[in-house]
């Protein structure tokens, strides 16, 4: 059953806030149906600050410095790029419990153009020292992020989806996958690993099936939800099993792809790495999310073709 990811997030937040009166939500005039439940039930702890994100993050830091656990909500570019300095200095540098809830990953706001698309936020927020980054891809990890943020009392940048998504079928226990920072969604042979993050992981499962049906190749698929700090040790032990790794993200290439490149280089792993994502390109054309993904060469069929081209360059040998 598909669940609206904002419901998954805010319903859980309402549950926790009923028992914890230190939890506060700030919004820069951005709403969600699930958020209105919080507002109705705990109106004194829901504050619409108006369209003023820099002040919102500063106010959040002040509240957090006085014992509150604060969630700030907004559309991805406005709670990342516009407030990058506030997140760096006011929040992360002082390790205050401010949790950014960023909606609009990738081409969610597809028709609104580069002002609203969420292609750059992960790359930007990755540069912030000591900021934990979580990227949602299904209701399980989305709900888990609320508990993780409230219990840790540390800064988080949490990217949630706007649409409804199915729960993944995880090959390991849900709890251990969530704690570990990534989920093994499909286990193939030891030739190719597809590593992805966010909603596009659902498409990657389709791509993996296409590879099996058309090429007789059985890739493994991992969805990474803990982007920072990347669970390096656990991911390394997975990556080491494969001769070829392809990262895929609905984002500019300098996020998951960049981070995986770094650890492969750092540990001199004998693995071929390819990164699929979005190159230096802005998207002004108004179209739906699937059409925008196609414009960025990231439809399932296009990803399949990129994977196919990539593996043709690699001699896997006998498995």
């Amino acid at each position: 059953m598909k669940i609206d990811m904002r419901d998954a997030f805010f319903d859980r937040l309402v549950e926790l806030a009923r028992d914890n009166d230190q939890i506060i939500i700030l919004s820069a005039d951005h709403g969600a149906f699930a958020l209105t439940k919080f507002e109705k039930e705990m109106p004194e702890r829901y504050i619409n600050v108006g369209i003023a994100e820099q002040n919102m993050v500063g106010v959040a830091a002040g509240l957090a410095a006085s014992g509150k656990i604060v969630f700030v909500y907004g559309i991805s570019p406005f709670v990342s790029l516009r407030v990058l300095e506030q997140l760096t200095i006011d929040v992360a540098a002082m390790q205050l419990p401010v949790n950014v809830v960023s909606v609009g990953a990738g081409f969610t706001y597809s028709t609104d153009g580069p002002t609203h698309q969420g292609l750059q936020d992960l790359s930007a927020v990755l540069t912030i020292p000591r900021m934990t980054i979580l990227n949602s891809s299904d209701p399980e990890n989305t709900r888990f992020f609320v508990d993780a943020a409230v219990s840790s009392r540390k800064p988080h940048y949490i990217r949630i989806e706007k649409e409804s998504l199915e729960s993944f079928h995880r090959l390991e226990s849900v709890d251990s996958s969530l704690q570990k920072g990534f989920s093994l969604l499909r286990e193939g042979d030891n030739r190719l690993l597809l590593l992805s993050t966010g909603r596009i992981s659902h498409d990657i499962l389709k791509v993996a099936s296409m590879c099996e049906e058309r090429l007789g190749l059985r890739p493994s698929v991992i969805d990474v939800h803990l982007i920072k700090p990347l669970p390096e040790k656990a991911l390394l032990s997975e990556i080491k099993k494969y001769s070829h790794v392809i990262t895929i993200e609905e984002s500019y290439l300098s996020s998951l792809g960049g981070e995986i490149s770094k650890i492969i280089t750092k540990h001199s792993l004998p693995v071929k790495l390819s990164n699929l994502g979005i190159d230096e390109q802005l998207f002004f054309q108004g179209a739906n999310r699937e059409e925008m993904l196609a414009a960025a060469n990231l439809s399932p069929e296009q990803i399949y073709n990129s994977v196919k081209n990539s593996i043709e360059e690699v001699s896997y040998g006998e498995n």
Partner: protein
Amino acid sequence: MPHELEDDRERLPKKARQIRIDILKAIHSAGKGHIGGAYSIVEILVSLYHGNVLKYDPQDPKWPLRDRFILSKGHAGIALYAVLADLGYFPKEELNFLNQGRLLGEHPDPRIPGIEVISGSLGHGLPIGSGMALADKMDRNSRRIFVLMGDGECYEGSVWEAAMFAAHHELHNLCAIIDRNGLITHGATESITRLEPFKDKWQAFGWDVYEVDAHDFVALKQLWMKISEKTSGAPSLVIAYSVKGKGVSFMENQSSWHHGGIDDAKFAVAMSELAPSQSRPQ
């Protein structure tokens, strides 16, 4: 005039002179620093910390009931360090090691006892102070939040975002002070991009606005009393008219003394003005 105010006429100027000397020595040791904007706020800091205005405990910097003071114009950090060191928040000898890899850097950060938040980039203090004031209002804490900003800082849009927010939420426990020395690094605010009519702007944003001579202890003391007794729900905004580089003749009203080094000759002249008895030839 109450006895306390009479006493302040002696005690507080003496303290201010000493703080200016400490600042001068620290910046001379460091090689360079933001002396102009540090000197313009000395009486404001001394009146807050030594005039029975702020509640604090140097032995317990995180005392939960303390008032909170945010130096949003972080480049004047040395002035606050000198006050905090004098009060015993940390050893005074640290002032001799400004910017030399020890406790004190050019801009404040909460590793330093008595410092609430990081500052340095302008336009952050008022939003953070508003959040603190809101938390205290929600929790019915009676303490107050003070934020000291530069006038040049008020070019930052985030200051006005916070100004709207604090007034809307009736953060009566918040007091912002603007060091109105009229100068930024490259000249006068009114010739670069004008800030006036400053008072009208803050009033229009919904603040109770007060004006004061930033170097007059009696006026400052009376103002802090007036603000502590007020009953309005609005936040308070103090425009403190100051002289950049106040106290040393060749630095006063010179934007060139916003930041820089002090050579031995200038140090000697400045010392002779600030402490004639200490610099008299033996």
